[in-house]
């Protein structure tokens, strides 16, 4: 039992720091930049992505075990993951619509951005490589969401300064944001002494 707990915690730490979705893999970097513009978006997107990566990882564990050992099974994984996430998306929307109509009205415009993005899908694909066992899948999925929150928070606190008049006009906004994320990504790599092989 303690072994499973330790493995789960270790995979959460790995997905938050060592293989942060944004800084190490650039999964959902555009969504993180969009979400970081408002404090409420940071929280909303992070909750949405964390819930989705955790639940989807649980379901994906069952299908990975069935399909991945088959020849050409990997070719069908995107389709399987799309179906899993679509089902969770529809169920989530239904629960919001019926249970929290005010919240549904607020989030319905951008909820698909929080669900159908590289951070959620990337977590599922990486799970098949790193997430050993059910607890591992859950840990990696949950950690990816937390890693997304950490990244969003770090981008959010710099957002105002990076959009200020002190930045040369052609670099203001998106270009300087990418350079800033690059520098943080470098810091994360140095922190863990690890580089993704690509």
């Amino acid at each position, binding site marked *: 039992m303690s072994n499973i707990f330790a493995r789960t915690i270790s995979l959460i730490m790995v997905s938050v720091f060592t293989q942060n979705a944004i*800084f*190490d*893999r*650039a*999964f*959902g*970097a*555009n969504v993180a*930049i969009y979400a970081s513009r408002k404090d409420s978006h940071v929280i909303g997107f992070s909750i949405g992505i964390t819930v989705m990566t955790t639940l989807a990882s649980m379901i994906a564990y069952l299908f990975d075990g069935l399909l991945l050992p088959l020849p050409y099974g990997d*070719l*069908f*994984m*995107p*389709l399987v*993951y*799309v*179906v899993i996430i*679509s089902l969770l*998306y*529809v169920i989530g*929307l239904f629960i919001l619509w019926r249970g929290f109509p005010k919240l549904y009205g607020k989030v319905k415009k951008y909820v*698909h951005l929080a669900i*159908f*993005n*590289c951070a*959620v*899908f*990337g977590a599922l*694909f*990486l799970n098949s490589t790193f997430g050993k066992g059910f607890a591992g899948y859950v840990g990696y999925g949950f950690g990816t969401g937390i890693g997304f929150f950490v990244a969003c928070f770090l981008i959010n606190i710099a957002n105002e300064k990076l959009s200020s008049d002190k930045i*040369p006009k*052609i*670099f203001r906004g*998106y*270009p*300087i*944001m*990418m*350079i800033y*994320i*690059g*520098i943080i*990504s*470098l810091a994360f*790599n140095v922190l863990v002494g690890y*580089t*993704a092989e*690509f």
Partner: protein
Amino acid sequence: MAESKKRINTDGLFRQNVVLMSGLVTAPIIVAATTLQRSLVLTISFFAVSYVSILLCRFISRKIVYTVRILLYTIVAAIMFIPTVIALRFLFPETTQEVMLYIELMVVNSLILAKTESRFYLEPYGKMSVDALIFIAGFAMVAFASGAVREILSYGTLFGFHVCEPIIPSAKSPFFGFILVGIFAAVCRAVVGRRVSSRKGRSE
């Protein structure tokens, strides 16, 4: 008037480039486009998955609610992924395996999920097919630029041919990808700004 109707809209190349201006598709460029061959594989897969999906999904009725339409778009893209990867594995077996994760992620790229609704499906079919192709060309342009710069810097080669000694081996790292895309984006803004001001000057 007729002339302006016939003119091809090249927004997708610079002014609304999916990597440099709107940042809709960045992950494959930042992490995976580290050599020209990888850039080629990414471009082919982006074309096959996104472009064909955009053309096919146009036939999905707009009477279907938005929530369900988005799901159908991703399902079509996930189906397109299968023949794309089979073909790429036959043509570039090693490189395809290296960048596989980023080919898989193209199923949910924002060109399919966002641009279709906000731009492509508001245009007539013919115009849309050219417009979407130009957006793909914009992606290809950045992919090859990133691939060329990073291959020379990190490996000292170009398409596998020796050019010089590796100058910055870490150029293949994601952090360098972020910084390079940021610099490219600034250059792209400068080019767009200059084009707009010269156009204004001509019209005055």
